[in-house]
């Protein structure tokens, strides 16, 4: 298929930028360059991680030492605790995980890895970031309005969320809902951009089955998001109407049904976690190949598994609702689909491990994070089997067992997968190398404190501690687990402090790190053929032409231990079949 960019020289929209005369605002603020937009998303995500982490600190201190004054915060009343827990979840999912894994990775990598100069719709791209920024501002503002921020849980179940008198919170929840609406609009635009770009702007020779796996993951994530978010947008509008206009979509006194909200929320909420998972998986896959010097084991099988996971993710949502009161006959079908989704994901994990077999493994910082991801995600995924079994779910639903499970799977993706990608693509993004020893220290401390924080939480949940409890000491049956709660809190503090080496490394390396060559990792994918960092338009006169798949590491009959995707070879016969 023809790619217009192989016919035209550097397009006009890029050419005039090459003068470098855009000025501060058009270069750093209202930029349309996908790489700068990616950094904007990254900055927003990292900033909101501070906010979300601070909320976690306050929550955990309250749980360990209830009704004491928390340093750097003060006393936490029950209303406040609910607002903390709600916004911690909302911020971490929508303002940390999504911006970093989709906004930053997606925007940075898609054009570079497919051989395009920018996204299909650069101005839409810019708009999508700024809408997210306004959305983030709304969430932050919600903390300071009278009666404080949203407090009905990140799940926002009605009628608690539908009538202000049930929570006592008024504009906090309204702003929360508006922020969601904007955030969904932002990612819808992003999804459209990702898909259009990848489908229509691949470089010559870049067939779908020569795309790096992280691109497949980003595209699948975009499709899942686009398909699933509509119901929740509608639900958010209906909930706002219930709150502001006195309608009763979710209020039984007016003929509405609270369970409708649950279905609409989870119909999106479940695919959403796969939207977050897939890009993190992708980053890990890229790194595993590069630092094993081996092709990814079972490239096509991973693609099929990814697509299967994407499909299955749309039909498991009611496993969040086993005890909700929905017809019990619906439960077993959802339990079956839930447990089935472990099959394609297990296949991907097996593939990751088999990629290591007979490799030549370099334990660089990105590789350590990738291996850490495999371990932590398998652990978290396995506790998902416990939750997916409906009878067992009766006992552990709504307890800290669930909290332990989703922190294992989410943080393995966002933290381990996220740092895999950040450390790996940092040289390309910023033109400098990060400090290796600090990177390893960051990894080791995070691995240790992460497990010491969340592993005991499974026990707390099995013992029956419900979620969103502000004071465990109010329950006699929880006295035995309070020492665990204290331990979890202390280890969580350690986990937060463990991020310091990263912050220092990140900031220092951006300004004073060793300058990076185009391909410091000797990787085969297209982004490493551009300078570090790439200029506007990513490549000079000509975009690359692709001759092979993305994982030609240690190919036989070649002296070097890798073949870049864009390297033409005299003897093409063996390599060009992929």
């Amino acid at each position: 298929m023809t790619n217009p960019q192989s016919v035209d020289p550097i397009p006009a929209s890029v050419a005039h930028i090459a003068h470098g005369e855009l000025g501060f605002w058009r270069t750093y603020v209202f930029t349309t360059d996908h790489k700068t937009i990616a950094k904007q998303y990254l900055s927003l995500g990292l900033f909101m991680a501070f906010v979300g982490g601070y909320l976690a600190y306050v929550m955990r201190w309250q749980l360990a030492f209830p009704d004491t004054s928390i340093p750097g915060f003060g006393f936490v009343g029950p209303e406040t605790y609910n607002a903390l827990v709600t916004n911690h979840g909302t911020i971490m999912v929508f303002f940390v995980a999504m911006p970093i894994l989709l906004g930053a990775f997606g925007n940075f990598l898609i054009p570079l890895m497919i051989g395009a100069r920018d996204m299909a719709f650069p101005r839409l791209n810019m708009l999508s970031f700024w809408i997210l920024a306004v959305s983030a501002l709304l969430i932050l503002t919600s903390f300071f309005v009278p009666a404080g921020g949203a407090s009905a849980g990140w799940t926002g179940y009605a009628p608690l969320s539908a009538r202000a008198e049930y929570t006592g919170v008024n504009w906090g929840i309204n702003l929360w809902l508006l922020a969601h609406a904007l955030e969904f609009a932002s990612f819808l635009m992003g999804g459209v951009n990702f898909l259009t770009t990848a489908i229509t702007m691949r470089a010559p020779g870049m067939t779908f089955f020569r795309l790096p796996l992280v691109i497949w993951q980003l595209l699948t994530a975009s499709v899942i998001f686009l398909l699933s978010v509509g119901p929740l947008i509608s639900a958010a509008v209906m909930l706002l109407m219930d709150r502001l206009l006195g309608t009763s979509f979710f209020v039984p006194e007016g003929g509405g049904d609270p369970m409708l909200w649950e279905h609409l929320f989870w119909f999106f909420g479940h695919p959403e976690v796969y939207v977050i998972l897939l890009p993190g998986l992708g980053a890990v896959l890229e790194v595993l190949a590069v630092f094993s010097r081996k092709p990814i084991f079972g490239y096509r099988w991973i693609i099929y598994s990814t697509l299967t996971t994407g499909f299955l993710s749309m039909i498991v949502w009611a496993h969040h609702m086993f005890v909700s009161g929905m017809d019990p006959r619906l439960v077993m079908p959802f339990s079956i689909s839930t447990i089935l989704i472990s099959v394609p994901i297990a296949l991907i994990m097996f593939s990751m491990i088999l990629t290591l077999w007979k490799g030549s493994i370099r334990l660089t910082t990105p590789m350590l994070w990738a291996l850490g991801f495999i371990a932590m995600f398998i652990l978290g995924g396995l506790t998902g089997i416990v939750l997916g079994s409906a009878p067992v779910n009766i006992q552990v639903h709504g307890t800290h067992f669930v909290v332990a499970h989703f922190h294992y799977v989410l943080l393995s993706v966002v933290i381990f997968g996220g740092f895999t990608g950040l450390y790996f693509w940092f040289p390309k993004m910023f033109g400098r190398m990060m400090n290796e020893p600090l990177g390893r220290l960051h990894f080791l401390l995070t691995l240790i404190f992460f497990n010491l924080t969340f592993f005991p939480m499974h026990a707390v949940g099995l013992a029956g501690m419900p979620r969103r409890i502000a004071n465990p000491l109010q329950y006699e049956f929880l006295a035995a687990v309070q020492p665990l709660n204290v331990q979890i809190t202390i280890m969580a503090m350690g986990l937060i402090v463990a991020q310091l080496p990263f912050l220092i490394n990140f900031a220092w390396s951006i300004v004073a790190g060793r300058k990076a060559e185009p391909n410091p990792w000797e990787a085969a994918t297209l982004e490493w053929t551009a300078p570090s960092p790439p200029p506007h338009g990513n490549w000079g006169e000509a975009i690359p032409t692709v001759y092979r798949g993305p994982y030609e590491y240690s190919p036989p009959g070649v002296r070097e231990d890798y073949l870049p995707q864009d390297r033409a070879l005299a003897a093409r016969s063996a390599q060009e079949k992929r």
Partner: protein
Amino acid sequence: MYLNWLPENISTHGGEIDSLLRLIYYITLAWFIVTMGAMLGFVLLFRRRDGQRAAYITGEKLSQAAWLLIPAALVLVLDLWIDFRGGDAWAKAKLHVPPSELQVQVTGKQFNWEILYPGPDGQFGTVDDLQIDNELHVVVNKVVGITLKSKDVIHSLFLPNLRLQQNAVPGRKFPAWFQATKTGVFEIPCAELCGFGHSGMVGHLTVHTAEEYDKWVKEQWPSATGDEIPR
């Protein structure tokens, strides 16, 4: 062993749930050991060595892909086994509600469990109905049938020792049931965020012997005669 943290099971259907949990625990533990053993083993065995090149294995050939497909098939088989076992346990706990010997209506209302007893006549909606907030009194070894409701927001009735959890949704009525095998007093937390009083919303379940229960009934309904006491 983590399963020791589970509250003591005093429910007739709790044993099946616990043994299913144990099965899943052992299956998942085995997978974790195998996968982590492989991963760590490979990392140690195949560290970069000078002069040693990685093997060019793509996994495309079926003989190689078998290493993916066969373990994935094993995962599928084990998953289906877990689900078959689960189907039976779920049916017992939630689908086939047995005829109950004691009945109560439990209504969640911010932030209490309003427990309505039908009284000695065994009928709801009569003069001897009695509402006692947060105190659920039952007899050991009798099937207790609960109609679960809510007056305001979603609550969740959670009886950890009975392996019972059921949301209470305003505008709906849900059945729940249990049969306790042991006497004692147990807490009833609310397991669904229901507002600023969610933390601390807790009732107490008292499982009486038959004699103690008769005594309790006489205390609550002093005018009841012996014949009318429900058992």
